């Protein structure tokens, strides 16, 4: 039963990822991306990582989707994806080969049962990986600068026009 739940979530995520890539309209691709986030967070919840699942759902399906829709509303009619430069069969072959090699190398590492150990996120985050917390603070400040860049309305050449 558990395997079926995982299979449904992950097949849905891979299907939505494919639809997001082949969609001509980027707004449709944005909706598919939000679906991927929801399905991946469901998988994380089933794995026992409830805190990360909530983060992924709120940030991936919420914040990033809003940012993408806002960016699409700014760029307007340029939100279409032109045809690929690389031939699609070549890209498909290269990626298929890479995926098969990755699966072949990673498959023996996965045992049938998970090891049982400590499950405490708080002690791991605040004691063992405190450097990560500081890096996250710096990254959030960078994100604020990015939001300011996203929201700025300055047009190139505007300063010259004011001076004239």
């Amino acid at each position, binding site marked *: 039963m558990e*395997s079926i739940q995982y299979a449904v979530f*992950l097949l849905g995520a891979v299907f939505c990822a494919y639809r997001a890539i082949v969609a001509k309209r980027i707004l449709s691709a944005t909706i598919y991306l939000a679906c991927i986030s929801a399905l991946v967070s469901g998988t994380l919840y089933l794995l026992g990582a409830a805190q990360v699942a909530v983060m992924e759902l709120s940030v991936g399906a919420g914040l990033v989707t809003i940012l993408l829709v806002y960016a699409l509303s700014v760029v307007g009619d340029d939100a279409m*994806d032109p045809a690929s430069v690389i031939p699609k069969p070549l890209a498909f072959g290269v*990626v298929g080969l890479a995926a098969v090699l990755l699966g072949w190398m990673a498959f023996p590492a996965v045992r049938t049962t998970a090891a049982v150990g400590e499950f405490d996120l708080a002690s791991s985050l605040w004691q063992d990986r405190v450097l990560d917390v500081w890096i996250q603070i710096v990254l959030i400040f960078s994100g604020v600068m990015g939001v300011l860049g996203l929201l700025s309305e300055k047009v190139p050449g505007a300063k010259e026009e004011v001076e004239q």
Partner: protein
Amino acid sequence: MIFTPLNIILFGVVGLLGVGLYGLLITRNLIKVVMVLQILIKAVILALVLAGKLSGHLGLGQSTAATVIVADTIVAVVGLALAVQVRRRFGTLDVPRISTLRG
């Protein structure tokens, strides 16, 4: 038994990575490149939590995944801001058309 839950998650990770790499190769729109990077990062988050579960250190896997989620969001924000500014400056989001570096 090949279809254990953990094996299914590994197949899902490989599938998401494959679809993401394929999208990275065929995509030309700058905003869509940011979206494809998001797909790749979701596969990485899943792989990190899977590795934590397998090793018995789920807390460690979760904390690393949380850091990756924050970094991934910042990449999306900065990438979208760059895309909007590029659109204003060059008038297009087509990556081959806006690449001005030669040689």
